[in-house]
């Protein structure tokens, strides 16, 4: 009896998902638990595992197809097994593309008439309507230009045939307004040699890889991989349209950095914590365990004044008061520390790029991205650390979040426990990280 492969429900309010890619081609052998295909919802992308071992047959959904939750998208058959083709359910009726996405109840799979196996290949091919494909049509040059300019193709209307986005449609970002020029290239990655499954670290907004130094000292043996986020440290200055794009760049850098590794542990702080969650969501098999320090994305509230103050400050005197919001007690930030911090922010282009990025990610003083669904889906062992005196992100956000994770509420720490109390954070890492 063939095993049906269905489009799973990965989100509470999900009625459809877009099949992004098949990892296995029709007719190929797949083992139970192996990555079978990727789906994209409005909120996330994720891998779906094969429900059984066997040969992939009767694929009815192609990349780009929007499929109702619960629909059969393929069958897993045994060698030589005869099967009936499921009816493809890739599309809602033309002319009412929104109708079914409002519906909360997924339509039940439709029973299919029995067909002889020999006619299957042809009859199972879905008739995809390119007009209603939600993905943007764009030329390779336009895609490259958008990538380099940090512009989402979804935000652009194309001037080419059938709305195709062409290179000329990609308008350069507002260089004159912000006073900085976009740069190209991958995110900056550094490594520390050491033992164990490497720990990949994602810093927070306005920090950089060097901000991990106190923690690294307290945690000397582990192999480390550090990624500088866009507009931070030595990574390119880019216009960032939103969190999704930032996450995509991190995923790209992650894929490059971990190509030869079976798994890594991932540590993220604040915005880096939100990115670590997004990463674990789309690369679940690569992430051995996850440690999040005061992760962003678990609620709308954020201390926008501190963010603005830090990105705007041009002198140590104006930076220091805002830095002191980061820690449990203001005394933790000395005037000399503020001077050193200002020195690392002396590049006005960096400050302008970060201010633009803050405007996109934290528009109107709100966290515009929500990682709570991803947190609920996590499969890797996860620890969340939060300073009890965090003034930037309220710890109430994690208390009310759903998901399976160990929670460490840290006394005497604010928003940056890895700097305030590195030894205690390192101890938790020792307990939690896998080898």
């Amino acid at each position, binding site marked *: 009896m063939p095993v049906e492969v269905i489009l799973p429900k990965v989100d509470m309010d999900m009625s459809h998902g877009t099949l992004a890619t098949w990892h296995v081609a029709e007719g190929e052998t797949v083992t139970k638990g192996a990555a079978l295909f990727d789906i994209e919802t409005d909120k996330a992308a994720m891998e779906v595992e094969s429900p059984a071992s066997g040969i992939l047959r009767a694929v009815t959904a192609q990349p780009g197809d929007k499929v109702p939750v619960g629909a059969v998208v393929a069958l897993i058959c045994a060698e030589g097994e005869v099967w009936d083709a499921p009816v493809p359910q890739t599309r809602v009726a033309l002319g009412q593309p929104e109708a079914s996405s409002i519906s909360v109840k997924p339509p039940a799979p439709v029973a299919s008439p029995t067909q002889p196996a020999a006619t299957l290949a042809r009859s199972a091919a879905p008739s995809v309507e390119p007009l209603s494909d939600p993905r943007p049509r764009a*030329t*390779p*040059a336009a*895609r*490259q230009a958008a990538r380099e300019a940090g512009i989402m193709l979804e935000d652009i209307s194309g*001037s*080419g045939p059938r709305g195709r986005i062409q*290179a*000329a449609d990609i308008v350069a970002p507002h260089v004159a307004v912000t006073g900085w020029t976009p740069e190209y290239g991958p995110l900056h990655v550094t490594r520390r040699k050491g033992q164990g499954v490497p720990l990949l670290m994602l810093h927070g907004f306005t920090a950089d890889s060097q901000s991990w130094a106190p923690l690294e000292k307290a945690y000397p043996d582990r192999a480390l991989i550090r990624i500088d986020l866009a507009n931070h440290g030595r990574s390119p200055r880019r216009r960032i349209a939103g969190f999704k794009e930032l996450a995509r760049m991190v995923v790209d850098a992650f894929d490059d950095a971990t190509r030869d590794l079976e798994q890594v542990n991932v540590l993220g702080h604040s915005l880096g914590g939100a990115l670590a969650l997004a990463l674990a969501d789309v690369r679940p098999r690569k992430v051995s365990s996850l440690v999040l320090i005061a992760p962003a994305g678990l609620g709308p509230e954020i201390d926008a004044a501190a963010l603005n103050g830090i990105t705007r400050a041009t002198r140590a005197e104006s930076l220091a008061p805002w830095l002191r919001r980061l820690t449990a007690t203001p005394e933790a930030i000395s005037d000399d520390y503020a001077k050193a911090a200002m020195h690392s922010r002396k590049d006005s282009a960096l400050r302008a790029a970060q201010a633009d990025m803050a405007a996109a990610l934290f528009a109107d003083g709100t966290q515009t991205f929500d990682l709570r669904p991803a947190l609920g889906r996590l499969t890797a062992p996860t620890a969340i650390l939060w300073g009890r005196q965090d003034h930037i992100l309220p710890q109430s956000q994690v208390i009310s979040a759903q998901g399976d994770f160990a929670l460490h509420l840290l006394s005497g720490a604010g928003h940056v426990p890895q700097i305030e109390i590195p030894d205690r954070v390192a101890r938790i890492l020792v307990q939690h990280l896998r080898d």
Partner: protein
Amino acid sequence: MNAMTDLRLMTYSEAIREAMAIALEADPTVILMGEDIGVYGGAFQVTLDLIDRFGPDRVMDTPISELGGAGVAVGAALTGLKPIFEFQFSDFAMLAMEQIVNQAAKLRYMLGGEASVPVVFRLPSGSGTGAAAQHSQSIEAWFGHVPGLKVLQPSTPEDAKGMLLAALADPDPVMIFEHKLLYKMKGEVPAGHYLTPIGKAAIRREGTDVTIVAGSIMVHRALEAAEKLAAEGISAEVIDLRSIRPIDHATILASVKKTGRLMVVYEGVKAFGVGAEISAMVSESEAFDFLDAPILRLGAADAPVPYNPDLERAAVPQVDTIEAAARRLARREV
């Protein structure tokens, strides 16, 4: 060499004849073979009077058997001669496929490099002469698929001479597809011995909006189309492929990266042709990211070349069809 005094205006067939005469004079191992190339002067009068100048031992008429003639040429090449074998029509090369594909192209490989087959095949090809389906084909792409061969398509008298001399200097079999409609075309040709590099395309017109890759007579049609488009402010770059095997990837890719739009124009049947190879090559290359429109192929209709002159004209790319397609591509309408 003084370029001013040494450039003469001559026809494509005169340039080929001059190349053969230079080779016959300079190298006693060079011989000409083919049907009616002696007293008759060749089906298209390319060898003309060479039999009078070099005698029947070196300008040899072969019997009406392409397989036999090509076989003797390949055998002669194996023994150290450098035969130039003329087919009356490139279509007739099909009769000699065994000798070209199975023998000439493979012997160096199969004999571990101990032997080579320095034969040159000359193949009058293309449509436009009212010679119907069996005498009007453009089958150069067939041979582009065969490792061991070099496949050339000169588009000018200068290249026709330089490529033939380069083919003779090459130790392996070279096929030169000469276009029948180009034989009477005049152009400046340098005097003396010179080589046109094999595998190097030529940019015949520089442009920025669209790249047109063409071969043989299509180069001239593309240039004429480009001239008309220039009046509309469309800047087309025209690349003369010159060599189908090997293909000059670098020149094509550099141009595509510049213009973002590519059109391939060729006289062979569109499907499975030169355009497919170039299109796929670009898609696989680093130039892919620079494409700002689908790649277009303009080739012959999916039918035998018609005898009716109007249909014959309609069956292959012409100046107006090239112009229209390039305009749509440049205007982003494709």
